[in-house]
């Protein structure tokens, strides 16, 4: 367990980072991320090969 605080001195009390919740959590997290990614947000993609126009009008 690592200290949650980072600084230039030692604090009176240490604040421990809780252990990561093993596999179950990470699958859940991965699923949530994948699901959210597939639903939304703004996105943009430039298809390089699609570009036939050379920039001059």
């Amino acid at each position, binding site marked *: 367990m690592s200290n*949650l*605080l*980072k*600084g*230039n*001195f030692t*604090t*009176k*009390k*240490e*604040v421990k*980072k*809780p252990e990561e919740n093993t596999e179950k959590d990470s699958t859940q997290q991965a699923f949530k*991320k994948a699901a*959210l990614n597939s639903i*939304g*947000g*703004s*996105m*943009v*993609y*430039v*298809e*390089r*090969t*699609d*570009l036939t*126009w*050379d*920039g*001059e*009008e």
Partner: protein
Amino acid sequence: MAKILFINPVVREEDVPRHIPYGIALLAAIAMKKGHLVQVYDANAHRLPLETIVEVCQADDWDAVCIGGLTTTYNYIKKACKLIKQAAPKAQLIAGGGFLTSMPTEIFKWLPEIDVGCIGESFETFPAVLEKIDNKDFDYSTVLGVIHRDLTGKSFLTPVRPNIHDLDTLPWPAWELFPLDIYFANSANLFSEESFTSKRRMDINGSFGCGLTCKYCWHLGTTGDMLIEENEEGENDVVFTYGRNIRYHSPDYIVSMVKHLYDTYDIDFAAFIDENLMTMDVASKGTWLKELCAKWIEAGLQPTCRQKGIPHDENCKGVHWNGTSHAGLHRPDTLKLMYEAGCTHLVYGLESFDPYILRNLGKGSNARKNKQSIATCLASGIKPIPNIIIGFPEETFESVRNTINALIELGITAKPHFATAYPGSEWYYAYKDSILAQYNGDLEAYIMDLGDASKITATISQKFSPVQLLGLQQIVYLKELRLLDLSEQHWAPVQQHLSPVVEPKTSFNLRPVKEAGPLAIKVG
């Protein structure tokens, strides 16, 4: 010396943490340089339950707890402030950053727990506040650039603090106080092949400000864009202007910082968070970026793939980078040098391809330049990342058609953002009354609703309601001109009989004048 705790609030909760907060990291470095005892709790990186704040606040006898971020961190900050005041009642609670500077008086009303706030640039204001705290003197009325309270809780703004003159006097950010492993694990992003394979990306900042005046944008009150003046009630308030103190770091400062990051943390990617690299380059008469690229290569930071002219792969050494560009201000010869030095992609806020919308936007670009920019950038080898918005105040079926036609012509697929009036921006002040009307008069509810503009909050489009904007977003994404034509046939006749959905107003808090806020006199 004061014992201070920084809390970095959670931002963009739906995504993994990707950015070490540059402002907080700089302020932490400045505080340490002044001899203060500093700790950082990076709540955004750790994503632990909110209550962890209590434990953190009880870890020591803090003289000050400091919190701040952009407007969308407000939800977190509001909850955090309550817990901080309960768990560390003796500590002064200091706030700063965009969420506060854009609307200091409202924030001080909504968050009574905050004792003092730094308004705008805080490189000198923050240590001045710490010095007061160190002396147990909590009368902040003599400190420039703050908002503070009297014993009744009423808030006051002190006069604006001049921007610092020479950015190179700033220390490097205190990266070592942040959980870098978490950020490195989220280095990859989908903007270019090189950024997609990045394993150790870090943000860097080369400049402050942007000479342009896009109506949706805001410059944080840190770039000469802010004055403090008496309002109609005779009380000091923020006034945002078109004034700018354009300042950039010397290429030597930037390159030695990146070299340090490369040698110390083995970074493979540096992301410039500058508002707009090209306006800085113009301010330097086209010398800044060229010099930066030459020094980047000279310092051995040029990626192997660019040095040898071979495709990028996992064995590539050196530091790739990205930044922000501008359709009317980029120059092919500079872009070419940037590519050689390792630049992979540049974000272009094209926003629209409609001539009328672009003329009103304050971006200094037009449809022709916007179209041409994609080809010019691609020709250099750098990948352009265009940003598109719909729901402009002036949006019409015709303007959407112009945008779709250009997207088709250029081979761009974009799911547009919705035009959103973030506090501080010109849009916010022009449409504040309409925004309030859309939130039943509850401004705080609007602030709490703001996210990343991929959903509709308050509309500022004069012709379209949320229902239509949602449909138009999908139509732009699919580039479906047939559906656009059908929608127009159905709606355009009705629209003629409707009064505008929203109307702009003038506001005390916005003055479209070019005169910049104060800049400190050069010393030495």
